């Protein structure tokens, strides 16, 4: 071990043993106490050369949820066509209305109403209005809490995606999943703590920026998990079998153990020796985690694996459940990839676009909720649904049904993980153009997610560039109490 402190008093040891948490790593134990920042730096004053970092970190208070599955509807689903029922719009198609909007087309003061293209019906005991886009999810409204009054700072994909994932519209900050792993570590060191699964049509705009660790070490970034072929990059030995690879590793370790003899106090060397063993274990664990052959036919059917449209997202939802079962902290699945109608970005034909993407995701999402409940995992798994923003009630162009982006008001939902079911909080105006009651910024959703994981967002800090950085920004944010059971 050489020096103990790094820039800004961060401790080198802190970064050395990300190995401990598997892919994504652990942070210092005890870092989430009330005096978190003090502990963070104080811990640097000790100089234990070896510490077993494998244990997951303590939460600040008892956690409701152990894992998060974030279903990211990339492109921005239209809230008024899905879960935010606006009876006032019915029968007003093509009417010109005064309404302030801000999308990729800039600021406008009036627009032509596009009446929602799907019929709404009430569901469940809560009587929640849901459109015919989500008939299966509608069966679970009593397990879901809807937030209709979301706001974000940008109606432009690039920066809005960054904000939904990292809290900031500027590039360079760690993502929610990175924060969770930084704060809590991982309970299964043989699997990544933060995985992301992408749409078959490609990644979202800004690609890997959306799951990057920003100013934190790269070990906190997400690992891309593929549902076909090798699940994780470089996981499998190339051209040799597992037995042969064991021999190679044994040879490496022999050399390394000889090398460390005269350098016994250097924990980096020891860590690196251990990292090969961890890697070897992962090679066995990860393929098992993505192997669906042990799932029953009924389960597969429930997730839509027999349905051509739902198959891809369904498989990812099923994988998400398997990951969470195995202790993965944070799973993010993207519905939609690439550009334009390959995701929820319905600028042209709203009907075509949303039928497609809802059609691919409705059944799998419903199945995920049902499956988690059946397995007794629902209470400790927080499911989050939403896009980077919503869509405008008015048309983007003179003709057609396309809607532009809307960051003034949109809907997200949460389920499981200690979230109240059957509630809806917040309101948009009668057009759905902006949130007017109980407005919640994206940061409030982040604070709620962290809270359910046993972390107070305002106390989870990371010192960088002269500042104590937080996921929820300098001003901080509180969880949304109304959602918490």
């Amino acid at each position, binding site marked *: 071990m*050489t*020096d103990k402190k*790094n*820039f*800004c008093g961060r401790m*080198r040891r802190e*970064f*050395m*043993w*990300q190995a401990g948490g598997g*892919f994504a790593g652990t942070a210092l134990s005890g870092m989430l106490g009330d005096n978190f920042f003090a502990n963070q730096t104080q811990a640097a004053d000790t*100089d234990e050369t070896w510490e077993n970092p494998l244990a997951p970190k303590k939460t600040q208070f008892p956690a409701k949820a152990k894992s998060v599955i974030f279903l990211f509807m990339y492109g921005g689903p239209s809230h008024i066509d899905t879960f935010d029922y606006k009876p006032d719009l019915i029968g007003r198609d093509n009417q010109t209305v005064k309404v302030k909007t801000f999308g990729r087309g800039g*600021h406008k003061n009036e627009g032509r109403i596009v009446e929602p293209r799907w019929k709404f019906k009430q569901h469940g005991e809560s009587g929640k209005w849901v459109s015919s886009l989500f008939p299966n999810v509608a069966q679970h409204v009593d397990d879901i809490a809807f937030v209709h009054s979301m706001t974000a700072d*940008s109606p*432009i994909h*690039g920066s809005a995606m960054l904000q939904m994932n990292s809290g900031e*519209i*500027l*590039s*360079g900050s760690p993502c929610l999943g990175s924060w969770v792993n930084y704060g809590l570590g991982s309970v299964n060191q043989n699997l990544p703590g933060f995985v992301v699964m992408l749409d078959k049509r*490609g*990644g979202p705009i*800004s*690609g*890997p920026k959306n799951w990057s660790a920003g*100013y934190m070490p*790269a*070990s906190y970034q997400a*690992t891309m998990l*593929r549902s076909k072929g090798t699940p994780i*990059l*470089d996981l499998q030995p*190339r*051209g040799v079998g597992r037995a*042969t690879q064991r021999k*190679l*590793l044994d*040879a490496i370790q022999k*050399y*390394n153990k000889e*090398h460390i003899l005269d*350098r016994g*106090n*250097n924990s980096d060397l020891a*860590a*690196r020796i251990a*990292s*090969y063993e*961890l*890697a070897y274990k*992962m090679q066995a664990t990860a393929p098992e985690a993505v192997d669906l052959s042990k799932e029953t036919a009924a389960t597969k059917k429930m997730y839509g694996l027999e349905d051509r449209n739902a198959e891809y997202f369904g498989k990812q939802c099923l994988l998400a459940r398997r990951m969470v079962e195995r202790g993965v902290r944070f799973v993010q699945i993207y519905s939609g990839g690439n550009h334009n109608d390959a995701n929820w970005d319905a600028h042209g034909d709203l009907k075509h676009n949303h039928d497609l993407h809802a059609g691919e995701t409705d059944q799998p999402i419903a199945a995920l909720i049902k499956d988690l409940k059946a397995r007794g995992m629902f209470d400790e798994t927080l499911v989050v649904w939403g896009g980077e923003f919503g869509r405008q009630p008015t048309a983007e162009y003179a003709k057609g049904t396309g809607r532009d982006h809307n960051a003034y008001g949109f809907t997200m939902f949460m389920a499981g993980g200690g979230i109240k079911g059957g509630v809806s909080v917040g309101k948009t105006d009668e057009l759905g153009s902006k*949130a007017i009651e*109980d*407005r919640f910024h994206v940061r409030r959703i982040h604070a709620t997610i962290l809270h359910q994981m046993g972390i107070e967002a*305002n106390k989870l800090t990371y010192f960088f*560039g*002269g*500042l104590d950085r937080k996921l929820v920004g300098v*001003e*901080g944010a509180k969880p949304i109490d109304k959602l918490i059971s």
Partner: protein
Amino acid sequence: MSALLQLSWRVIAAVFFLLQYKQYRMRNFKRSSFVFITLFGIAISIHADDSVVTKLSSSDGPKRKLGPNIVKNPSFEQIENGKPTGWKTSTWGGEPKYEVERSFARTGATCVKISSASGANSSWSFPLTVKPKTDYRASAWIKTSNVDSTNYGAQINLHELQLRAKSDSLKGDNGWTRISVEFNSGDRTALLLNCTFGGWGSATGEAWFDDLEVVELIDPVLVMTVDEKTEFFEKKVKPILEKNCFECHGSGDEIRGGLIMTNREDLLKGGDSGPAIDLRDYKDSILLSAVNYEDYEMPPTGQLPADQIQILSDWAKLGAPWKGKGTRPKLADSGHSVPEVNEETKKWWSYQKVTRPEVPAAITAKTKNEIDYFIQQVQVGKGLKPNPSATKEVLIRRAYYDLIGLPPSPEQVAAFKNDQSPDAWEKLIDELLASKHYGEKWGRHWLDLVRFAESNSYERDGPKPFVWRYRDYVIQSLNDDKPYDQFVIEQLAGDEKNEPSREDIIATGYYRLGKWDDEPVSQLQAWYDDMDDVILTTGQSFLGMTINCARCHDHKIDPIPQADYYSFLSFFRNVKRYGVRGHNTVLDSSVRTIASKEDAIKYQAEVKKHQEDIADNNKAMAAIEKIAKKDFIPVEFEEFKNENRRIDLVKKRVGKSITQKQFDDYREMTKRKRDLRRFKPAALESALCVKETGSKPTDTFIMIRGNANAKGEKVEPSFPSVLSPPEPKIKPTAEGLSTGRRMALAKWIASKDNPLTARVMVNRIWQHHFGRGIVKSTSDFGFQGDLPTHPKLLDWLASEFTAGDWKIKRMHKLMMMSATYQMSSAPNEVALKADPVNDYFWRFNMRRLTAEEIRDSVLAVNHSLNKEKMYGQSIYPKIPNEILQGQSRPGEHWHTSSGPEADRRSVYISIKRSLPVPFMASFDVADPDSSCPVRFNTVQPTQALAMINSEFMNEEAKVFAEYLQKEIPGNPSEQVSVALSRVLQRMPNKSEVERGLQLMNELKTNDKADDREALRLFCLVSLNLNEFLFLD
């Protein structure tokens, strides 16, 4: 409103006001339009006549009370000498006739009349005495007969306010009609009330005026009694505050934004952003802009209804009356207050000028130069002894990696080992410092600091044009041993030199390395965000100061007031944003040609010639096409639109309207047309660089809370005040392209008198040789940073640095010639106990190779590194498909390199912000979104997976095996030995070779590997060894 305009620093707001006049409502100040105006810097001077008409709409609050009529003799009943007392006439043009009408009146006996047959512009006028900044309403009754006018007919107005305070005008025939106008007196105490006839034109006919009235419109809240005020607070205001504000601002467990609203004193004191209510002008109150959702959006859960906002506004207008003392939360002591700039804080060690300390006497014989004296002086006090010298094998490896980032070859190791001359080490250092690969290693350290990247991040993450020239500039500058002060000046202000060279221009690419959101929510805010990034990078990299922390408020830890941030910003105030939107805007704002004048002239001639060639060729083709077209059938005209079809259409007519010769020519010309399109004159060399909006400096203001729309006090350029700096000497550039401000800043930073610059830089040099800086927080020399472990040594090095003309290579040599550098890294139980983290440099610090060093070394030991090709456009190592799939357009902007190009050094790898090369990222390359002074140093299984399983490593192991087979065919033992000597840069011992052979035999016997594969796998093993990745 008038008060707002009165404040000179709100002149732009006034400009905005004039443009937006009709829609104007103070509280509906529209941010977007505001942005537009200031962004394009439209300079409109306004005549500061503050009196403007207000539309006193009923929504402004309760009905206003009316004051007494201030017009004397309003109904013209008092007549003296045939004229109404107090009134006079004013003729502005034409021939009016003024009369007192005695035959009828609206009230009383008399009224006044103006008439004209030939046309007049005239009035009956009354001089008013008014209160300034007060709202009034003027009204009159008018009767007309046959009035016609080239502009206005009969009306009233306030003379000084001209068109802005006039009533409706009456023309034709009207019975007694009441007209009125409301206005604000602005700064005036006197105004002339006119009953005009033919205003701003000429009128004919007859008009009568009677019953004039000018009354003050009294705001009811202002006439409340004290009791009424407190009751208003208690009944109307407090419930709103309690429901919406107190939880976060006084009664909850946490105080947000430092603002307490549960008592009047704290409310007026305000929070981080200043007082919540501005008693000087209530309209400037943050409370009001917050509830109106102008910058803060409070309460955040939803905007208050309009009537509640009105109540708060009235309350602010009343001066925020309160009932009782209110409550004050028990606050946990935050532990420190914001440090001020004062004599005490100015004493901080790094703010003192560097004075050359006396060099301590040598203590042991093992010392080699002054560095050792300083180091040992401290060690003696701690009872520590320095380690003995490292072996020559260790030393040559250390020197190679530290200076050029590459491993020595077995031959180089042998030569050094065998060189017994006393100056063998010095010769080695000189040789490495002279190597052209030195800049490739040390340039990378600099590129980390300036967050060098070749794309912009965000949605498009588009490439930055010519940015590689900046990377080359850095490498070249270091290779040339350019004095550091020059290096600083060139980057910050190369373009502001007299007759800047091409290098000077390229260097200013410094300003263009950061992120760029080409579609920001607000262009204005985005400019400030971009500049904040420049301030952060400049402050931390050059000065070790976190000036960036003072953007929204005074620095919480260091004595850097917010005003200092904006004074610092003012040096960059005219810098254009990287671009607005799209490639052409980037070319406009950030690209200049660096070609010589001769080349530029030549280029223009070539372009002209090329255009003429195209025109000539087209003309000749058109002539033949014209003949062919004569017998086109309609569908052929359609077909002709497709260029590729034309030749067939012409060919069809060969032997008819077209001759074979004509067709042959046509075919030639078609080909030539294609060629002309393809081969354009080579574009002029260009560089990414800084550009300013012009030489006239734009004003800089403190932005309250860092909000680009909330202007505070104006500031002038100055350096951080805690350093007691000199005044900046600013001289606009000769060419008039920029303000010269950046040059003033650059010269101050690059000055020997600057207490920070030399210290910060020598500390960085030390850091990269010894594993950590003397100040460990190498970009923060402030209160929060680490104290130097060896302050005297640091100062001595800093004075050496400046005394040696800021030459960096000299400093390397000085450090490397010390015994301290040449120590072994071996552990020593006693010392480990006393100083486990080696604060006192009793041994050398081991380190892992950097990502670049690992990749370059893999290529070097397997003999495939293409180190001869330096500079130029970047390379694109293969990125696995599964990673490219993460892009929204998989593979976009990643042009995978192949052959020798792919084997170039890692410093030439293209850095795309949204697509880090996974192998490099896993070994902790700097994240290019922010300045990186110290890289992470992680150990994680993804690295192990990449090292054994990646395509890259497996391919390179194969190349290595092929090299060994070619060099030493059929001799496995020698192959293993050479492999290990190349990887470890020392001769392997017998058992190490034996182990390799055993592995190969085992693989051949039991794993069906042939000789080739066995050797390949051994090579892979060798490249995975700790000894390969770690330096002693």
